């Protein structure tokens, strides 16, 4: 098999040198069926990796405000982790607007995160249905003008099972999609254009694997950068982190996926007890969020013959060998790589990603490592603009020196304890808030130092949080009167509410913040009259939100509405005036919370 791979690589090199697209020697691709039979591959004789078997125009729904695109579904040849030929589905998305940068339109291979093992979880199907939880990131890349190539990864053809987390197979599939995309008639994709890989979580693993094997598997690809976030690089370490934890479903998925790829080494029929067999069947029928809640905090020992513990299973030589084969860090990355991870990541431990950075740096890879403040899901979407900015610099040919040389201490985990409830903590997130005063027809912008902290307990479906708003001055613009007032907003009790995350990744929050609004002083110029008057009862600010889970990280978590201010009290001789000017219904507010900025390490 290694011989075959070497021959393939050699052929790739020769073809790339000839300037021909890699798979141009194959028969012309054909239009595939419009229905689900698109996912049932035709029986064909052997061909080359990256050969486009068939394609069809597709409709993708990337969310409100996404740029107009043309899209195609594709079925193409690739190679699994053991060197066997396979067929993989995917989606190629090209902005309708012409590329305004220099050269050919750059290509981003978007390596998807965990989607779930059932066929309907395939990214190509989720994108078509407008339900793909990563669509915000894809839309951001499209918005930057890039063509985006989204491999489903192996195993979503009809009757197959995904080889989830078989890193080499995922890397092959993502690399071969660059070749296949260039063969879509009329898509305008130049296989020689600058390309980058971007992925998070499972996708981070894929992206890093691409970096490690690109030189041998796809030497012709004009790869200029890789962004890999939330990467599981040390499989035994990651498995122990997930065991009996909120992310236990990812461990179960890995067992199923790797068992599918390496059935002799991880013989599920022999390892799994009756409960385990049932869990495998359930896991194969679910998508990521449903599976997350189904198996949350489960232990491997519940599902193994003789209730073997995770450590006992990992100690089985063939299992251990398979897990170790998934580990990253043994090769130099030939292009600059942007690694990133959330400090509070509860699914993938940051320490083993830190070690991966060290491994790559030791091999003189050009590594930039960014540390994000929050947990796994938030980081996935918070990172998008930073990743795209970094990739944009690579496409533009700008040099990067990376952060291998750093004197900062290595980041350490701030994750909530594993096991127990799934709690997403918002720790002093910047609060961008403004209130439109109805009568005064003016906007009061809360200071930039205002923050919102909360624990959103997804398991209990509850939210508890607090507002923190330092005193600030707001100049009211009244014709002929330069009135300055010093305001203070004080939370009254905790922010409380309900929160839920459904099986399609839709986040819903229904809560209430209450606050006293105090006028500390008012006056003209240097003549300030101290007051301390405030709303006679707390102001209710309903905080209601419904939208994709990506909103947690990408700055779209906004609570807005209209509320009433009660009469003011304690304003002395001017109490009635302040009541007249500031109280009553129709006071509009907008609260936006977003995670604090990342740092580099």
């Amino acid at each position: 098999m290694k011989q075959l791979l070497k021959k393939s690589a050699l052929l790739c090199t020769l073809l790339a040198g000839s300037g021909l697209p890699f798979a141009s020697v194959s028969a012309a691709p054909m239009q595939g069926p419009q229905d689900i039979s698109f996912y049932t591959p035709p029986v064909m004789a052997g061909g080359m990796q990256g050969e486009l078997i068939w394609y069809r125009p597709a409709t993708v729904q990337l969310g409100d405000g996404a740029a107009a695109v043309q899209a195609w579904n594709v079925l193409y040849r690739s190679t699994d982790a053991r060197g066997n030929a396979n067929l993989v589905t995917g989606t190629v998305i090209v902005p309708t607007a012409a590329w305004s940068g220099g050269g050919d339109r750059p290509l981003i291979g978007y390596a998807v995160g965990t989607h779930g093992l059932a066929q309907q979880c395939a990214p190509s199907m989720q994108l078509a249905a407008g339900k793909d939880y990563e669509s915000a990131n894809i839309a951001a890349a499209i918005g930057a003008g890039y063509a985006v190539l989204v491999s489903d990864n192996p195993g979503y053809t009809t009757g197959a099972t995904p080889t989830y987390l078989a890193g080499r197979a995922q890397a092959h599939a993502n690399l071969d999609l660059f070749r296949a995309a260039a063969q879509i008639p009329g898509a305008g994709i130049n296989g020689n254009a600058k390309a980058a890989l971007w992925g998070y979580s499972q996708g981070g693993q894929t992206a890093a694997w691409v970096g490690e094997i690109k030189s041998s598997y796809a030497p012709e690809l004009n790869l200029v950068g890789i962004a890999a976030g939330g990467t599981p690089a040390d499989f035994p370490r990651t498995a122990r982190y997930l065991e009996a934890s909120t992310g236990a479903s990812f461990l179960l998925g890995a067992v199923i996926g790797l068992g599918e790829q390496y059935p002799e080494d991880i013989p599920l029929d022999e390892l799994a007890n009756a409960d385990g067999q049932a869990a495998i069947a359930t896991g194969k029928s679910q998508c990521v969020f449903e599976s997350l809640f189904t198996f949350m905090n489960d232990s491997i020992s519940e599902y193994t013959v003789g209730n073997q513990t995770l450590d006992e299973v990992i100690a089985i030589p063939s299992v251990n060998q398979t897990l170790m084969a998934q580990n990253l860090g043994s090769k130099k990355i030939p292009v600059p790589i942007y690694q990133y991870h959330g400090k509070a990541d509860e699914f993938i431990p940051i320490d083993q990603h830190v070690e991966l950075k060290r491994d790559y740096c030791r091999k003189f890879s050009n590594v930039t490592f960014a540390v994000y403040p929050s947990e796994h899901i938030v980081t996935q979407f918070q990172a998008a603009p930073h990743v795209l900015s970094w990739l944009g610099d690579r496409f533009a040919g700008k040099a990067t020196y990376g952060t291998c040389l750093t004197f900062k201490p290595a980041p350490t985990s701030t994750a909530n304890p594993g096991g127990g409830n799934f709690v997403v903590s918002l720790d002093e997130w910047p609060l961008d808030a403004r209130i439109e005063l109805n009568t005064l027809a003016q906007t009061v912008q809360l200071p930039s130092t205002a923050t919102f902290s909360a624990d959103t307990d997804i398991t209990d479906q509850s939210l508890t949080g607090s507002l923190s708003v330092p005193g600030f001055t707001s100049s009211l613009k009244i014709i002929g009167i330069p009135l300055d007032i010093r305001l203070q907003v004080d939370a009254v009790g905790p922010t409380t509410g309900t929160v839920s995350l459904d099986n399609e990744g839709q986040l819903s929050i229904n809560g209430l913040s209450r606050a006293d609004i105090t006028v500390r002083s008012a006056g003209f110029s240097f003549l300030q009259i101290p007051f301390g008057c405030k709303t006679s009862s707390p102001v209710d600010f309903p905080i209601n939100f419904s939208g994709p889970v990506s909103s947690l990280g990408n700055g779209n978590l906004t609570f807005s509405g209209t509320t009433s201010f009660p009469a003011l009290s304690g304003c002395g001789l001017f109490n009635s005036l302040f009541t007249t000017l500031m109280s009553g219904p129709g006071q509009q507010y907008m609260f936006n919370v977003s995670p604090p900025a990342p740092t580099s390490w």
Partner: protein
Amino acid sequence: MKTLALMLAVIMLAATGWYYHDNRIKPDSLVTDEAVIDFDDPAALDPQQLVAEQSAAADAALTLAGEPPLAGNITQRPEFVSRIEWQILKGVAAARENSEQELLRLVNYLRFSKQLEWWQSQQPDQNHHQHIRVGWKLLNEIPERVEQQDLAADQAQQLQLALLEVLEPDAGKRRHHLEREAARIGVTFRIESSSYTP
């Protein structure tokens, strides 16, 4: 001649009655000696004078309790509006397209607020008759304040409850009265039980 005199008397009486029931601005409640406050020169402001003006305006608001809200175009300062309040209200209203209507609303809400503030500051046994009189006036004006978007319906309903706690000692009557008042601001609810028999 007698008939003519009688007719004149009737007309004068009717005019007088109209005058005192009309809610347009009354000349004797308006102030014409306007000395504009120079906000750009705070040093020129006399704090003691400002305090005196605020107190006088508050007193004037109280004496107008029982009068309906003002209507029409306000071009001069009502005496229950102090000079500083007048300039601020005019400045706020001027920023709106419907500045005349907005000024009228602000002036009426200011008067309502001053009367309510006085009412809330009094113990029920203090100035009992005036307390009751102002209370009924406030209760009567609440629907207008809701219509003008000065009060939200829930705030208005709470205020109705607070007023009727004082104005209607009988619990049963109070509940029925509260139901009627709530209906006036578009809020309906059903009383599950009552000992009151009309």
